[in-house]
């Protein structure tokens, strides 16, 4: 694929004027990299990375409306169910596989992380930190948390595998994933002090344990 091919599919600009979470991911992605975005929605992260890092991107998405939105945004998208694995993708064929705010909604978490490490040199995940103090406060007061990062009620949430920073780090060490970098955000701010308590969104970059 050369740059002319990419230029031939023009992308109308997607509304991502204020996505600090995208900026965190973009900061980790090397320019010109080949990126697979799992659960890519309307393709806005791929558009963002294409603009910011000149990446070659593909998305995986199951929802018809989102797939159509990707078409409209000129994003390469493969309609398929993440839960059934990434058989369409050759081992080691990507520089990064991204799972942006989707980890907590995946049924077979172990399999998807395994597949990410098979298909790509590095994995990047972001997820809402269930250990965020406002979430803890709501649980303490007797309710399941509802917040900016977890905007659902307990009965309609797609988020079936919520975890904290500590939980995810333990999961990585148990599943052969070596964490290369971590970033924790609250709104627009990077959180370095007591991240498992003060961080709302967690980002990790990891690779296969050698």
């Amino acid at each position, binding site marked *: *694929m050369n740059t002319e*091919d*990419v*230029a*031939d*599919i*023009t*992308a109308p600009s997607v509304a991502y004027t204020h996505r600090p979470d995208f900026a965190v991911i973009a900061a980790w992605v090397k320019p010109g990299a*080949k990126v697979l975005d799992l659960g890519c929605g309307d393709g806005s992260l791929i558009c963002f990375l294409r603009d910011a890092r000149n990446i*070659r991107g*593909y998305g995986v998405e199951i929802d*018809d409306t989102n*797939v*159509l939105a*990707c*078409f*409209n945004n*000129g*994003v*390469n*998208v*493969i*309609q*398929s169910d993440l839960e059934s694995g990434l*058989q*369409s*993708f*050759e081992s080691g*064929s990507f520089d990064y596989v991204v799972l942006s705010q989707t980890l907590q909604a995946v049924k077979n978490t172990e399999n998807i992380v395994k597949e990410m490490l098979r298909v790509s040199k590095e994995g990047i995940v972001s997820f809402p930190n269930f250990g965020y103090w406002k979430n803890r406060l709501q649980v303490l007061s007797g309710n399941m948390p509802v917040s900016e990062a977890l905007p659902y009620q307990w009965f309609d949430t797609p988020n079936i595998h919520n975890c904290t920073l500590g939980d995810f780090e333990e999961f990585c060490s148990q599943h052969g994933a070596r964490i290369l970098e971590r970033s924790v955000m609250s709104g627009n701010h990077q959180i370095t002090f007591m991240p498992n308590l003060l961080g709302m969104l967690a980002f990790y970059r990891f690779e296969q344990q050698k």
Partner: protein
Amino acid sequence: MQDSDSISIVAPQIARFDTPLHLKSGTALDNYELVYETYGELNAARSNAVLICHALSGNHHLAGFYADNPKSGGWWNNMIGAGKSIDTKKFFVIGVNNLGGCHGSTGPASINAKTGKCYGPDFPVVTVEDWVQTQVRLADYLGIDQFAAVAGGSLGGMQALQWTLDFPERVRHALIIAAAAKLTAQNIAFNDVARQAIITDQDFHGGDYYSHGVVPRRGLRLARMLGHITYLSDDAMAAKFGRELRNGALAFGYDVEFEIESYLRYQGDKFADQFDANTYLLMTKALDYFDPAYQHNNDLSAAFRAAKANYLVLSFTTDWRFSPERSRAIVRALLDNELNVSYAEITSSHGHDSFLMEDRHYHKLVRAYMDNIVI
């Protein structure tokens, strides 16, 4: 559903080629004609041409109507036209009847200049690669160096795929819809039963039925009935016909009783009245032979190594003749070669025929893809 401003009157045209065409089978055709239609205007940069390849029973009449026949709508009228998904206000769209066809291009029913008789069984077996060669010549004839897109469903999708392998510099986008990179054994089996129905019809006369003044009507009818069953899904057939009886009660005989029988016989009769049996044989062989991975040790990824196009691959959930798995195999090979590809699996109850049906989501996907093509 017809968009009133997209109904246009069209007329077929004929291009004659006198340079011998060397076929994959090793034989050659000294000269031949292709009948084609065009829609929209070729722009000054000649960058907006779209070639639509047809499937087994299709032809060059994609869209619009003939002046003398208001019922003569093109077979892809719901997709192609002014303001439609493949918008003839943007694109110069070309439909061509494949070589060996029976709608005006040179085929088995045409007169062989050497003998003064119909070709009949002497018409060579042609392949998808051969068709692409003829289509390239048509492009040259029309002054088109590079297509903005080549598109097709089923056997037409195979041609679009082959275009990107044989002429990577001459096609920017390929739309491969309800297709496959090769037929399965089951699929070849269906084709062979269809062929056997035709060949064993006593009116077939070894393919030379023209000189006997007959047509192997029963065979062609059976072939179409069998094909039709495989183009529909079990669910679609159940929904449309169920176990409905034509006369409301069992007749304890062998005449038409169930609605599905009536429908299939009607489809078979209609087809047998208008299609040439030798063309049917030839088209099914082209389907069976198609296998671009074969010469690459059955490695489809290797077959795409020279390809440069951007691809749209579409499949339909209930298509069991060209199942989504076949399309996913194409997608995998494209991804292996880091080509631009988008793939959608469209929920539809109409089986293989879905690619011809009006479906909002399907048509929106094609429109979105076509809209983003820079001309």
